[in-house]
């Protein structure tokens, strides 16, 4: 019933139809695909640009600095100034480098991270590619970017960047596992690998005002937390930014890159962050669904954008707070904490699924068991992980 929807909700569709009306019918498929790609590139390109600015501003404010405020009003033109700077820098290729792979690595990385934008439902009618196994596509595109990291590290003929690339790969592979395991519960509950079906399954409200989002269940909360930690690591964000630890390594596997190729790696990092954030919104935060029924007049894509921006600000906040992990702590955290927790979470969701048919009166028991299944392993494994580490004493800090 498209007419019952507010006008703003249908605005993108109307715009697309207006463009289509200008062109002959046989070109329709091509025009639609081209429009999808152009809009995705434009929106996320601008989001990337202003995310870098927002990151620098927020980090600055957290450290009691004003942040960049020179280019344009309050610094809004800073990303474009950065872009011009990066484009005009010299592009150095080492003499012994493998020129083809050296060139292909950043291109492949950006391409793979852009590919994952295709399957995220941005709104009720805004989905570039409605695939039956869209979630799998998303993670397949993400997994392919490991190859680009290896190419970047190997092609420079620099043993340090090669070592750093192997460390980065160890990190990416370690955190790929909890990332994949943490979304399996969502697939089990909604019974589909299609992102749009997963979002639809989270529609509706308990008692009229508590949304049926996955994150508001015990297993969903645990899965969301694991997913967010793993996506911090997958997108090389602090505190897991070991691959490119700018203050310790010389940019790790990016050592031999300069100029715009270097900027492309950063573009890929931010695109990956946006894509993983968007997937987290889709899987756990109800996608484009409004949190309350009476807020439904706000168009769905605005809700998606608000949730995505909140997650991205959370990424920045965490970056400003937590210090970097060591490589052994990082891998131990993945294999000894996140992977077991994600596996236990499968048991929790199995219980949740089986107990769905219990009568309403057993609901408190159902919740209690599910919460216990999440909290007890968390505490037990956390204790084991931190065994032997006493409380910190700060000799020189003011108490």
């Amino acid at each position: 019933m498209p007419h019952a929807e507010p006008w703003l909700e249908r605005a993108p569709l109307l715009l697309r139809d207006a463009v289509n009306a200008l062109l002959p019918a046989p070109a329709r498929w091509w025009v639609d695909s081209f429009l999808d790609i152009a809009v995705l590139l434009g929106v996320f390109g601008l989001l990337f640009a202003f995310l870098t600015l927002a990151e620098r501003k927020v980090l600055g404010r957290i450290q009691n600095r004003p942040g960049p405020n020179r280019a344009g009003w309050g610094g809004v033109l800073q990303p474009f100034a950065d872009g011009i700077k990066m484009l005009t820098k010299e592009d150095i290729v080492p003499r012994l480098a493998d020129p083809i792979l050296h060139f292909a690595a950043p291109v492949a990385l950006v391409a793979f991270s852009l590919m994952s934008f295709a399957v995220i439902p941005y709104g009720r009618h805004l989905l570039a590619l409605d695939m039956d196994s869209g979630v799998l596509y998303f993670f397949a595109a993400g997994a392919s970017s490991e190859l680009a990291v290896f190419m970047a590290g190997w092609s420079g003929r620099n043993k340090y960047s090669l070592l750093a690339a192997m460390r980065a790969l160890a990190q990416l592979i370690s955190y790929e596992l909890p990332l994949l395991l943490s979304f399996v519960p969502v697939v089990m509950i909604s019974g589909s690998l299609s992102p749009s079906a997963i979002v639809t399954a989270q529609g509706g409200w308990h008692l009229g005002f508590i949304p049926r989002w996955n994150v508001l269940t015990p297993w969903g909360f645990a899965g969301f937390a694991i997913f967010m930690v793993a996506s911090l690591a997958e997108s090389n964000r602090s505190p897991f930014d070991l691959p490119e630890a700018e203050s310790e390594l010389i940019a790790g596997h990016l050592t031999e890159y300069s100029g715009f190729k270097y900027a492309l790696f950063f573009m890929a990092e931010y695109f990956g962050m946006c894509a993983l954030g968007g997937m987290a919104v889709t899987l756990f935060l109800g996608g484009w669904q409004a949190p309350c029924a009476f807020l439904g007049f706000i168009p769905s894509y605005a809700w998606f954008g608000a949730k995505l921006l909140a997650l991205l600000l959370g990424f920045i906040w965490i970056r400003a707070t937590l210090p970097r992990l060591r490589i052994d702590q990082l891998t131990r955290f993945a294999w000894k904490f996140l992977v077991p927790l994600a596996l236990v979470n499968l048991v929790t969701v199995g219980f949740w699924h089986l107990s769905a048919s219990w009568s309403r009166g057993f609901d408190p028991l159902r919740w209690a068991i599910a919460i216990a299944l999440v909290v007890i392993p968390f505490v037990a494994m956390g204790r084991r992980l931190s065994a032997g580490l006493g409380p910190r004493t700060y000799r020189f800090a003011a108490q």
Partner: protein
Amino acid sequence: MNAVLAAIALLILASAGIALTLRNIVRSVILLVVTWFGIAAFYLWAGAEFVAFAQVLVYGGAVSMVVLFAVLLVRHGKAGVAETPAPSGRIVSALLAGGAIAGALAGAVALTPLAPAAGPAPFAPVRHIGVLLLNTHAASLLAAGAILTVALLGGVVLAAGGGPEKEDGP
């Protein structure tokens, strides 16, 4: 003939063929990854979405990484990752064997009267595959899982075993 299929075939055969001739092992492996992506594209073309993404996830994400790590772990000396070429007799015999097999298979394919079902690509929804996997083929799924687990454990034991005293062996 289908233009998309022709393009995919060109991608697969060209990347595999060039990978066959390159001396640099890393480049060879990366080209083989391109071949695997091409095979995934073939699955996608045939309508097997799930298999295509599984192929990318497993081959592009996991197997390629294992292979590249192995390449980097076993290189030594000045040669680096360049392979010493095989004797020409072996290359000729390999090409002959490959050509013979290709000829025989192509002949068999051309001569067999196949009756392909025409029509659009069949659709295999993930839900359908999942139901089949867990009902009809549950035993095979368990067996595959067991094989994977045992193989990974065996791989870890093999790669990590030996101990430091074997490090400077012959």
